[in-house]
């Protein structure tokens, strides 16, 4: 890739781009360009401005300053539709598909081909949809309803939909956040094909691995400003972190590990939807990591322990008392907390304040004689805002306005506020910037150090290895391996998780 591109090669660029919102400057005189035939990664901490930049490029936000040039000509993008007409396509993180309609209907939503008499031309629709699907490598019947597809395949449908408008530039907002490693690799294969076709692709990601796997160039934003644009080959992960955060981060304190106490939770042959019979124990003060491929039971374990799924069999004990929660309320009453993986859908009350989000689990404790004690509620929330360094203007700020990492800290605060004996944290750092990730991990460790136990269920193998004391690997609804975190590696965990079933060698423990 030549350092200096000719004017022809630059498909889309912005210069001096500024965008402000009440109270913040989201983009501060940013320059950015997308070239023909490149994959350009956009990195930065939460709140650095990546999503804002993408929204401006998509035409959804109007810049407050600077210029936008498409194909070298200055334009004013008047909305997403206009941008699409100019050849800028966007694939969003929050998928925009209608589950009840077929793939083909979704791809051509609102633009169904018609025959004479203005009737839908189903044959043409199938044909056109099939062509696009093959281009993204999706070998599924276009008549399949979207609701039957996994998130990974739905993502490919989204791409096909964006491609149907024949864009020259494709923008991706965190395309791999809902995908497994294998699915992400497949997506990257598709992106490479599109790059070979001459498209310019931009994608936002948090995952370092992906940057070095597929990007040609990397642009790093920090606090709304562009720190720099580099060819991927010139960077290392450490340098990227430094550029993103502006300072060196201390390595994850592995030395925090201490001797765990006695068993807190024992589970025997737990069978539930997605689990064929798991047996394990968690000790006080320990962080037990649980990982596995999608469908291994990893997603089902949290639900089963928190009262969200009926058990088909098995027993469990928590602190000596039998545990079989039939609802989250019962699980909470027994001292279990749960950080759900989809914090926006299932965890946060986006239209309510920081204070309300934090005290929801302790309404009884924050009241007297049936009436809420608002002073105490404010105090509790305020204390957490301080100690967890939650970046909000006040405890009255609406949580929907906060960045992803800050929101996750609010969720953690909610559970820290009731000091659970066992905290189940599922994918706790998905979509969170590096700085906040480290903070959240620190919080989990602190909770463990105070005597609670943490069940860290995560698909992020690096996270599991770095944070947990022991790691369980699940496959096909069973525990297939157990390792001490210090004695294993991401590669070994991945191998254990991917091993074909019934290889008896898997049950070794250390």
């Amino acid at each position, binding site marked *: 890739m030549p350092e200096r591109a000719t004017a022809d090669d630059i498909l889309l660029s912005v210069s001096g781009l500024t965008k402000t919102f009440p109270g913040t400057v989201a983009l501060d005189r940013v320059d950015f360009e997308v070239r023909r035939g490149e994959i350009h990664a956009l990195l930065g901490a939460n709140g650095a401005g990546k999503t804002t930049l993408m929204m401006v490029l998509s035409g959804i936000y109007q810049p407050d300053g600077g210029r936008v040039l498409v194909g070298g000509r200055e334009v004013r993008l008047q909305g997403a539709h206009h941008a699409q007409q100019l050849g800028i396509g966007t694939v969003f993180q929050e998928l925009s598909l209608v589950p009840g309609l077929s793939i083909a209907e979704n791809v051509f939503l609102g633009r169904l081909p018609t025959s004479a008499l203005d009737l839908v031309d189903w044959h043409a629709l199938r044909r056109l949809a099939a062509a696009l699907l093959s281009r993204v490598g999706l070998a599924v019947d276009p008549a399949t309803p979207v609701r039957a597809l996994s998130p990974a395949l739905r993502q490919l449908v989204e791409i096909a939909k964006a491609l149907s408008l024949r864009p020259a530039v494709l923008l991706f907002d965190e395309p791999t956040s809902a995908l497994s490693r294998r699915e992400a690799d497949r997506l990257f294969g598709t992106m490479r094909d599109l790059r070979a076709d001459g498209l310019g692709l931009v994608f936002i990601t948090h995952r370092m691995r992906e940057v070095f796997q597929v990007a040609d160039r990397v642009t790093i934003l920090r606090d709304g400003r562009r720190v720099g644009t580099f060819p991927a080959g010139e960077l290392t992960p450490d340098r990227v972190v430094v550029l993103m955060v502006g300072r060196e981060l201390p390595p994850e304190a592995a030395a925090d590990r201490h001797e765990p106490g006695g068993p807190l939770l024992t589970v025997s042959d737990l069978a539930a939807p997605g689990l064929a019979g798991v047996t394990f124990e968690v000790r006080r003060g320990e962080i037990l990591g649980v990982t596995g491929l999608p469908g291994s039971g990893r997603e089902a374990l949290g639900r089963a322990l*928190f009262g*969200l799924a009926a058990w088909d069999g098995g027993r469990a004990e928590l602190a000596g008392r039998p545990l079989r929660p039939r*609802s*989250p*309320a019962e*699980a*909470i*009453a027994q001292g279990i907390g*749960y950080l*759900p993986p989809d914090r926006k*859908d*299932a*965890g*946060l*009350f*986006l*239209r*309510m304040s920081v204070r*309300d989000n934090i005290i*929801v*689990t*302790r*309404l*009884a*404790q*924050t*009241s007297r004689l*049936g*009436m*809420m004690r*608002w002073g*105490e509620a*404010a*105090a*509790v*929330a*305020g*204390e957490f805002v*301080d100690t967890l360094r939650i970046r909000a*203007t*006040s*405890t*009255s700020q*609406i949580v*929907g*306005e906060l960045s992803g990492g800050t929101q996750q800290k609010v969720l953690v605060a*909610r559970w820290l*506020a*009731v*000091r659970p004996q066992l905290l189940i944290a599922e994918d706790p750092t998905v979509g969170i910037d590096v700085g906040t990730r480290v903070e959240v991990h620190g919080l989990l460790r602190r909770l463990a150090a105070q005597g609670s136990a943490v069940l860290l269920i995560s698909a992020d193998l690096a996270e599991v290895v770095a944070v947990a004391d022991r790691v369980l690997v699940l496959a096909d609804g069973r525990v297939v391996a157990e390792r001490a975190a210090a004695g294993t590696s991401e590669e070994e965990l991945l191998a254990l998780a991917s091993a074909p079933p019934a290889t008896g060698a898997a049950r070794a423990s250390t």
Partner: protein
Amino acid sequence: MLERPHVTVKPSDAEAGRKATAGLARRILGVRELLLVGVIVVAGLLMTALTPYFLTWGNIESMIIGMAPTAIIVVGMTIVLVSGGLDLSVGSVMALSGTLAGLLMLRGTPIWLSILLVLAAGAVVGAINGLVITALRVNPLIATLGMLTIARGIAMVITQGFTVTGLPEPFAYLGQGVLAGVPPMLWIMAAIVAAGDLAMRSMRYMRPVYYVGGNERAALLSGIKVDQVKVATYVLSAVLSAVAGILLASRLMAGTPTAGVGLELTAIAAAVIGGASLLGGEGTVLGGFLGAVFMSIIGNAMIILGISIYWQGIVSGVILILVVSLDMLLRTRRL
């Protein structure tokens, strides 16, 4: 669990500034309620300028008396809306309650017992609504729509379409008597509105209503018994509709099976004007009450100003849209 922390909240600069400008009124009333009070005052002033007959004690009193049953129902409707639900059966339950109370009293049941039985019947209706919605997972619109026709049908059947008259004289006290200058019905309405507002703002048992309406799944995962909360809101709404029906029957000294047709839409409009969101999670009882006052003023104004009956529907519809649009504009500016 966490010990009471000794840390006091250190407000950020922004919060300190906001508190300085706010004051007592702001703390009790939200921005929305203040806006409504403002709109009502403006409407009142406008009316007073246009006609001397608006701001008379007789007119004001007749407006408030007329609005009392609706205001009581709006309290319940607001609570249901905040929880993310909808109750279309309130008008029918009001009619059923009035007729049932009348029939019981005609049979010789003591007044106090008749009232209790009717309130209990209201609770049963509300429980049915709630269970159909939570256990059978029927959409609240459909479920309460069904109850709307069923309750009204029952009222028709038990009365054979007749108005129930000949109620015992003492029963008239609630709606026609005088207690400190106004019928007891108005004090009851005031008490219900005040209690309802206080409960929704500060009662620990009502907080879950906001959480359920804000994000049902998150509420469940936070340990809130979502189904229980929902059933409770429908029971509350139905019982309040029963109260309204009893008070109305006392005022008219008649149980009328045709009363309150379409009242549910008026109640929803009042609640939404008052700040309740149809998506749930937002709304206050005080706001709903002010919304009811506002709509009552509009209705009164149209008659006093002599607006043709053919135009009244258009006028009130346009005003409704304007006020709600104003609200939407304010909401989006804030975020």
